[in-house]
């Protein structure tokens, strides 16, 4: 198998799908699948990726793939896991359940929580582009504070989303999972390692993937990678893993760039004033400080 520094030439999420130019989610999917390989079954939630990859009779998937509904990828994956076990066919097969932030943080959270409680062996990947992009950029529980969406607009009275992001990765970690990590296309080697690690574990594991959406974020298609890098450098999206309950940084940022540099490239923050920029900076600092406070410590009880 040919590869570049361990990243395979083989494609399992094929080109020709209908994702937008600069779609961060399609990029993430492509590399998740390169890392997961051919012995992988994917259960995907309703969302952009399902729509762009499977307009009947076409498919971009070179692995077995199933889509049922918006909120049930984790439940479908549970059925796949037990169905294979019941027939003695579970060995050597990876199962990945995937959903966007709407499917994972919001509507499908119950199904995800149930699957994690039961400890099924599969990896759930939340591809987070911080809004309901497939339905036209509506606010989700993962939308970044002050971001303008079509349901949290930059109004005359209220400026964009007023609430913080739901800390899904920590809620997930509190289920007792032995592997939870964040990952970004800005560090593909890190992403590859995390996908492989997550799939190697014997119970449910969780990955939180950062995905730029040029359409929803009102940024240039060409800026997807720049924004992905800036999200790490500004500490907006830190790369970490919680392995057996202990949090470690994978790309620690000692001297962060001001968050303003990140906001300025995106139309969804066009409206924010100086005071709000300061609030966002404080929000980012506080989140990172929390991570620092638990770094290297057994911060989560591990049940599986």
């Amino acid at each position, binding site marked *: 198998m040919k590869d570049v520094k361990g990243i395979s030439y083989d494609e399992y999420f094929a080109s020709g799908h209908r994702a937008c130019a600069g779609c961060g989610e399609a990029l993430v999917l492509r590399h998740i699948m390169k890392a997961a390989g051919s012995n992988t079954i994917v259960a995907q939630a309703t969302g952009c990726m399902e729509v762009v990859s499977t307009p009947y009779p076409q*498919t971009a998937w070179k692995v077995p793939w199933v889509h*049922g509904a918006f909120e049930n990828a984790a439940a479908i994956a549970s059925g*796949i896991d*037990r*169905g294979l076990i019941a*027939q003695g066919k579970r060995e050597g097969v990876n199962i990945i359940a995937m959903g966007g932030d709407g499917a994972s943080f919001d509507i499908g959270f*119950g199904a995800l929580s149930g*699957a994690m409680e*039961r400890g099924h062996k599969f990896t759930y990947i939340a591809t987070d582009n911080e809004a309901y992009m497939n339905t036209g950029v509506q606010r989700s529980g993962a939308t970044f504070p002050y971001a303008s969406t079509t349901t949290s607009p930059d109004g005359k009275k209220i400026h964009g989303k007023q609430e913080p992001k739901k800390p899904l990765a920590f809620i997930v970690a509190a289920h007792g999972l032995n592997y939870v990590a964040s990952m970004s296309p800005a560090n593909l080697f890190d992403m590859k390692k995390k996908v492989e690690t997550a799939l190697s574990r014997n119970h449910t594991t969780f990955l939180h993937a950062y995905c730029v959406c040029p359409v929803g974020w009102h940024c240039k298609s060409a800026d997807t990678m720049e924004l992905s890098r800036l999200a790490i450098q500004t500490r907006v999206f830190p790369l970490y893993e919680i392995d057996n309950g202990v949090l470690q940084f994978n790309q620690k940022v000692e001297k962060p760039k001001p968050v303003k540099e990140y906001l300025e490239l995106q139309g969804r923050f066009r409206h924010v004033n100086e005071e709000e920029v300061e609030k966002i900076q404080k929000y980012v600092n506080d989140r990172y400080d929390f991570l620092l406070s638990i770094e290297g410590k057994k911060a989560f009880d591990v049940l599986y």
Partner: protein
Amino acid sequence: MKTVIEASEAVALGAKLSRVKVCPMYPITPSTHIPERISDYIFDGEMDAEMIHVESEHSAASALIGSILTGARSFTATSSNGFELMYEILPILSGMRLPAVMAVANRAVAGPINIWNDHSDAVSARDQGWVQFYVESSQECIDTIIQCYKIAEDKNVQMPVMMCLDGFSLTHVFENVDIPEQKQVDSFLPPFKREDILDVKNPKTFGPIGLPDSFMNFKKQQQDAMINAIDVIKKANLDYKKLFGRGYGDGLIELYKMDDAEYAILAMGTICGTAKAKAEELRAKGKKVGVIRLRSYRPFPVEALKKAFKKLTRLAVLDRHISLGSDGPLFTEINAIAPGLDVFGYIAGLGGRDVTLDHMESVYLDLETGKQKREWLM
């Protein structure tokens, strides 16, 4: 072997005898005894299957998608609001042509919240692409669950099947049941074989988006499959009868004292027993009355019903559901296929309201006097 068991246990035994491999289940009254018995079998090592203790009925139905797509015969059970929580997934299972089998312990849907029997849960899902049986006895439960797999997995059907049994008035009733031998069931129901599965050696895409150029064609195929199911149901009933000595009418409808009947009651489920008892009583008094029990509500057996109506002067349809703002769904549908027949419609037994012998007598009297009646049997 004959033994006295609860109908819920008969359902669970039916699933066990069908060699079900995966059971994603979530408890809700009055279906609870079904997952309880299946748990007993699995936890005691008597049933070689995986129980998935899902966190909701929505996930129960969703897990069926995954498990069936691995090639595992799968089963679940629910009632009422649980059924409604699954509702989104019902047409997805049928749209994906997955032969799921589900027992529905019929219970009124809230509100107000009510745990007792009527048909408002399953009847309101009549358009979702599931074959729907309504059964009358514990014996019919065990026999029908086995038949459900035979029908669902038939290559000309490939549609999910639900078996509806009345909550409490059947689920919790103990009756003498003849339990089929495993060997005989195996000869009736071969192992589940499916080509279209999630297989890493032969990757396929399931559940793609159907655009306007294909969606309607998929629906037409599903409708054709449902029409195919009519003959498949009849054959399953006949084959089962040959092997086990028990049949239920022609599989679609069951006729009681209908040979020369002038007046008949048509209904589904356990209230047919009450109607039969009254018919027997009136027959002794020389009245030409009968009962038509509709067993297969979907597919709707139009030809079998029309044939059964031929000699009738008047027919009463008893609905255990009301399509608010319209009428009893069974009544309106029967009316549509019997233009020359005088059809009376009754709303009966909602939310567990008793449907008594006196009610049946009043209905037969209405039919005899010919007073056009639209009535709620309160």
